[in-house]
């Protein structure tokens, strides 16, 4: 499909990344994933940073407030 992408911002959710990646955290640690698709937390509240753990679901203020589709 022509609109197929490798990075996908989920409304009020994580950033999806297609393919194995390494993410360097602020403290310098590198987190690696070999999943076909990974979800990077955008709300900052995950207990498994840098990855999303679904915590964004229970936030009182959605990440993209006012942008809900």
């Amino acid at each position, binding site marked *: 499909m022509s609109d197929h992408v490798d990075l996908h911002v989920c409304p009020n959710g994580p950033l999806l990344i297609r393919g194995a990646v390494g993410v360097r955290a602020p403290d310098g640690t590198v987190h690696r994933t070999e999943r076909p*698709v990974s979800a990077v937390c955008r709300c900052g509240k995950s207990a498994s940073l840098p*990855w*999303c753990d679904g915590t964004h679901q229970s936030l009182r203020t959605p990440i993209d407030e006012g942008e809900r589709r």
Partner: protein
Amino acid sequence: MTTVVMTEAGPETGLPRARGELSDAVMRALTGALPWSRLVEVTATDDEDALLTLWIAHELHHRGLPRFADAEWTPELVVVRRRLEGELEQRLRARAEGHQPESATPDALLDFVRQDAGPSLSAYVQRSATREQVLELLWLRSIYHLKEADPTTWTLPRLPGPARAALAELQYDEYGGGRPARLHAELFARGLRACGLDARENAAIDDVPVEVLEMNVTLTMFGLQRRLAAASIGHLVAFEASSSAPSRRMARGLRRLGLPEEIAAYYDEHVEADAVHEQTAARFIAGAMLRADPTVADDLAFGAFTCLDLERRFAASMFRRWGVRP
């Protein structure tokens, strides 16, 4: 009361104990003690008997009951299976009517799951379940987790292109991304073994309550019937979207009780994996189906409702069994 059977060997046929006339008859037909032609005359004693019969018929399509693999497409058995599936589907649709979400866009499905307020087994496991109760829960869930993701694989070739690509990507992760040791079913088996439980597929079948039978045959029916592909995907979305946070609570409860790391690892994996799967299932699979054919909305919603409703019924039955108020 807990009846966790540890390593007792099942009968060598692998057949479960009958729960009524029809399940008894189907097993007699499988072992040659009843002519297949007689099977269609038998009626089920009750829903539990019907669901176990269906479970046996479905198991022939899965990996279970290998001694009877030749019976998979026996016409009389297919007749009975279709009749039982018809009754089950009718019951599920009646439950969903007026309760399933009105819209089936990705965000509507995810919101529907978020607003679900059913009794939570994982919250109970995290805070106060006993070791015995948790082992019993793992044991009863093993019927599904040891064939995790399999029923949904049957849906794969029925989907339009973009949805098919996205489901293949999700299932690849469920099946370990090419590494057998990372198969989710294998992660669960390893956890069971570490807990001292029998990890052979279907070892728990004689202990599961009717709610577990209903959960399992529903998912297999959604997978086996092309007509129900959208219900299968609606179920998938709700299943994945109701997994990350409960998996985190399960892992915490398992560690609170000092249960083996191997079983906690299964739930750790699902915190992260299902945070991805809920997004891809809703947006790339269900969303793509809906774009290709807007008339699938109703069945996407039906599948999502049914997933949550069956889990709610299972949770309620466990709390009743334990004499606990959720």
